[in-house]
C-alpha cells in the first residue's frame, strides 16, 4: 500500500484531492489558489483573502461569522500567503471536529465544506464591490502586517537577502504585498481582481480526514462550481549568470548580527539531481548533525543557530545564522569552508546514511499532520511533476557520494547579506 492514499478527481475548474485516514479527530479542508508572482497583482492577492475571511453575505460581520464558527465546535478558518518558486499561492484552511468524538452527533463534514464555499464564493459584496469598511479595515491591518515583518529581525534579514539576491526577478516580491500599493486599492478594483483570480488561478481542493469519498465528491460538486480554465504558467526562469558575489552590509540598532548567505543551486523540484541536493543540504546545514551546526555552533561557539534550507522551486539555498557583530569575517570563512568541503567530497558514508535516515523521518513525520501532508502533495502541483512519497523515499535512499558531489558542484554563491549593529560606524 502506498504511504499516502491520495485520490485525485478532476472537477470543473479545480482538482479535488481526497486523503481518507482515520488518524485525526478532525477533518481538514484546504483550498489552494495559484498564479504567477507578479508586481501588478501581488498586493491585490495579499489583500482579498483577508477580506473574504472577515465576513460573508450570510454572515456579514466578524462577530456573526466567528459566532457561527464557534457553534461548529470551534471550526478554525484562516488564510495564508506564500510563494513557491515564481508562483504566488493563497491557502484557505478550515479544520472542523469529527462529530464521532462529540456527544452531539450532528454531522459536521458538509457544514465545514459549506462554510469554506460561503467564504470563497459568497462575499459581503454588492454592485461589483466589496463592502467598503471591511476593505478599509483589511488595508490597515495589511499595512501593519508588512510593517511588523521588519520588527522580527530573523525574518527581516531572510527577506532582505532574497530581495538583494533576486533583484529584477519576480521571486524578490514579498507574498504579503507591497506597502506602497495598498492605498490605491479600492473595494471595486479588489472585487474585480478577486473575480479574475477565481476565474483564472489554478485551483486545488484537499479534503483530509475520516471521510467517505463519494460523500465528499457529491458535496464538492454541489458547493464548488467553477468555470474551466487553462492556468497561466510562470514560465521557465532563465539561469542567472553570477559575475561577482554581492556583499551587502546593513546597519540597524540591534544587538545580534544576522548573517544570511544565498546560493543558487541550479536544481529544482522534479530535476534528477533534486534528491541529491536534499541529501547535500542535510549534511551541509539542514540538521543538528550538519557541518554548519557542528562547525559554527559547537566548535567555534559563534552562534546559537546556524542552518541552511533549500527553496525547492526557485533553486536557492539559504544559510542563516545569528552571530556577534565582530565575528562576521570568522563566520563567513567557516561557512565558505564547509561549502568547499562539500564540493570536494569531504564527507563520510556515515554522514550520508545518517542524513538519509533523518530526511526519511522528517518526511514521514510531516505527513502525520494534515496540513503537512497537503504541503507535500502540493509540491507536485507547483512543479507539474507529481512524485509518490514511496518513490521520493526510494530515490533519496539510493543517492551516492558521487551524486552529492555532482549536485554540490552546481551550487554557486550569489549574495552575502549581513544585518549588523550601529557600532564602529
Amino acid at each position: 500500500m502506498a504511504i499516502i492514499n491520495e485520490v485525485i478527481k478532476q472537477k470543473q475548474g479545480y482538482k479535488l484531492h481526497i486523503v481518507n485516514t482515520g488518524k485525526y479527530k478532525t477533518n481538514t479542508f484546504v483550498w489552494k489558489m495559484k498564479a504567477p508572482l507578479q508586481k501588478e497583482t501581488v498586493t491585490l492577492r495579499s489583500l482579498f483573502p483577508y477580506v473574504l475571511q472577515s465576513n460573508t453575505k450570510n454572515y456579514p460581520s466578524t462577530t456573526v461569522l466567528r459566532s457561527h464558527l464557534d457553534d461548529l465546535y470551534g471550526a478554525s478558518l484562516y488564510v495564508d500567503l506564500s510563494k513557491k518558486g515564481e508562483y504566488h499561492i493563497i491557502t484557505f484552511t478550515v479544520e472542523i471536529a469529527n462529530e464521532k468524538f462529540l456527544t452531539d452527533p450532528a454531522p459536521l463534514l458538509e457544514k465545514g465544506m459549506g462554510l469554506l464555499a460561503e467564504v470563497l464564493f459568497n462575499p459581503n459584496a454588492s454592485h461589483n464591490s466589496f463592502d467598503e469598511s471591511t476593505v478599509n479595515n483589511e488595508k490597515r491591518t495589511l499595512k501593519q502586517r508588512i510593517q511588523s515583518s521588519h520588527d522580527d529581525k530573523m525574518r527581516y534579514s531572510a527577506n532582505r537577502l532574497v530581495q538583494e539576491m533576486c533583484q529584477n526577478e519576480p521571486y524578490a516580491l514579498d507574498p504579503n504585498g507591497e506597502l506602497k500599493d495598498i492605498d490605491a486599492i479600492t473595494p471595486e478594483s479588489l472585487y474585480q481582481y478577486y473575480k479574475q483570480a477565481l476565474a483564472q488561478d489554478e485551483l486545488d481542493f484537499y479534503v483530509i480526514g475520516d471521510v467517505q469519498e463519494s460523500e465528499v465528491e457529491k458535496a464538492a460538486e454541489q458547493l464548488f462550481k467553477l468555470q474551466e480554465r487553462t492556468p497561466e504558467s510562470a514560465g521557465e526562469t532563465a539561469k542567472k549568470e553570477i559575475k561577482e558575489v554581492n556583499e551587502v552590509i546593513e546597519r540597524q540598532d540591534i544587538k545580534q548580527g544576522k548573517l544570511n548567505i544565498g546560493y543558487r543551486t541550479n536544481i529544482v523540484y522534479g530535476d534528477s539531481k533534486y534528491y541529491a541536493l536534499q541529501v547535500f543540504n542535510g549534511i551541509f546545514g539542514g540538521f543538528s548533525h550538519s557541518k554548519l551546526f557542528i562547525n559554527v555552533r559547537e566548535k567555534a561557539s559563534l552562534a546559537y543557530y546556524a542552518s541552511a534550507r533549500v527553496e525547492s522551486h526557485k533553486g536557492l539555498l539559504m544559510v542563516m545564522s545569528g552571530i556577534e557583530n565582530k565575528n562576521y569575517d570568522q563566520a563567513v570563512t567557516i561557512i565558505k569552508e564547509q561549502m568547499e568541503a562539500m564540493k570536494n567530497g569531504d564527507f563520510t558514508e556515515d554522514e550520508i546514511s545518517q542524513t538519509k535516515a533523518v530526511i526519511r523521518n522528517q518526511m514521514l513525520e510531516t505527513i502525520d499532520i494534515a496540513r503537512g501532508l497537503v504541503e507535500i502533495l502540493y509540491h507536485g502541483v507547483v512543479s507539474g511533476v507529481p512524485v509518490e512519497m514511496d518513490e521520493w523515499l526510494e530515490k533519496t535512499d539510493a543517492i551516492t557520494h558521487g551524486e552529492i558531489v555532482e549536485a554540490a558542484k552546481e551550487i554557486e554563491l550569489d549574495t552575502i547579506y549581513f544585518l549588523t549593529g550601529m557600532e564602529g560606524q
Partner: protein
Amino acid sequence: MEKIPFAQLDEELYYEKLDNGLSVYVLPKKGFNKTYATFTTKYGSIDNHFKPLNKDEKIQVPDGIAHFLEHKLFEKEDGDVFQQFSKQGASANAFTSFTRTAYLFSSTSDVEKNLETLIDFVQDPYFTEKTVEKEKGIIGQEIDMYDDNPDWRLYFGLIENMYKSHPVKIDIAGTIPSIAEITDQLLYKCYETFYHPSNMLLFVVGPVDVEKTMNQIKENQSRKDYKDQPEIERSFPEEPAQVAEKRKVLKMNVQTSKCLVGIKAIDTDQSGSDMLKNELAVNVLLDMLFGKSTKTYEELYNEGLIDQTFSFDYTQEFGFGFAMIGGDTNNPDQLEEKLRGYLLAARNGEGLNEDALSRTKKKKIGAFLRALNSPEYIANQFTRYAFNEMNLFDVLPVLEQITFDDIKNTAQRLIDDSRMTVCQVVPK
C-alpha cells in the same frame, strides 16, 4: 500497569509508577508514523533557591542555570547526543520553562533504540570546565537573539511588572553576567537534586506496543542504581498580591507598537481539580470577553486598535500565574485604556452572557479535539498537568460543567485594579 480508558475520545492511556519513583505513561496512537517521547523533570527556571541533595543549607544558584544544564546534558565524553539520535533517524530537542525541563525525540523508525538513548543520555551527565566555558558563547548568542525580539521583551516586561520578588520574573536563559558564574560543579549540584527519577515523568505517544515499551523502560531503570531521595526542599520569596509596577514602556527598534495588559493571578496555591477548574474558567472568561466572535473584538478591530496578532492567554502554576491580553497596535495608549475598561466592567458582569458561554464551551471542545491530533501537545501538556496533579483528559468533563455563575465569580475574584499592569513596546 494501570489502564485508563477515555471512551469518548477513543484513547487508552497506560500508567505505571516504577520502583525508583519514575512515572511512566504510554499512549498508543494507531495510524501515526511518528512516536514522540518526552522525559521531563519538575525543575525549571524558578527553582533557583533550594537545599542541594545531602546538604543542610539552602543555596541560591545563578540565573539561567536550569536552561544551561539542559544544553549541557546533550554533550558527552564521546561527542554530542544529537549525532546519536540522527544516526537512528530521530530528531531530538529540549526546552526549559519556568517549572519544567523536557528532553524529547520524535522518530518513525528505531523507536526502541531512540527511547533507550533518550533515557540514558538524560540519566548520564558529563560536565567539565572546558565544555561549560564553550557553551557560554552559544547561550550568549541565544540571549542576544531574544533581546532583539520585541515580542519576547514585551512578554517578559509584563511579567517583570507583575512580580516583585518571585523568580518567574527572571529570564529563563539568564543574562550574560549570570551565566558567567555557572561552573561544572554547580551543574552537578542541580542535576543531583532535581534529576532523580522520583522527580521525573516519561511520556511515550505513538504507534507503539504498550507492553513492550513499558518493559523496556522498566528494564532500563532496573539496571541503574538509584537510591531513594528525600522530597526536594525549594523556597520562594514572599510575593505581594498586587503588581510591582503598574506600567512600563520599552523603546525598541520597531515600526509597529505593541501593548499587553496583564493580570496577576490569585489562588496560586491551588493544585489538582481546583486548579484545573480555575484555569479553564479564566480561559473561558477571556474568550467570552475578547474572542473573535465578541462585539468587543469587532469594535477594537473596526476602530483600528488591533489586528490579527491580538491574542489572550492565562496560565497558572504553583506560586504564580497571569492573564495577558493584547498585540500589535497603532495606538498602544488607547488600546490599553480600552482593555482595562472592558476588564474592570467584566468584574461586575458586564459583557458576559449565557449564550457566549455555551458558544465558547463548544469552541473549546473543538479546539481540544484539534489539539489531540498533535502528539507533541499531548505529551507536553499531559506532563504539565500531571506535575500540578491534574489530568489532561479531564479537560472535557470539567469544561462541560462550568456554569455561568462560575464565570461571574471568576471575573469578580480575578479582576482587580491593583493586580493589573501594562507593558508597551514603542518605536525609538
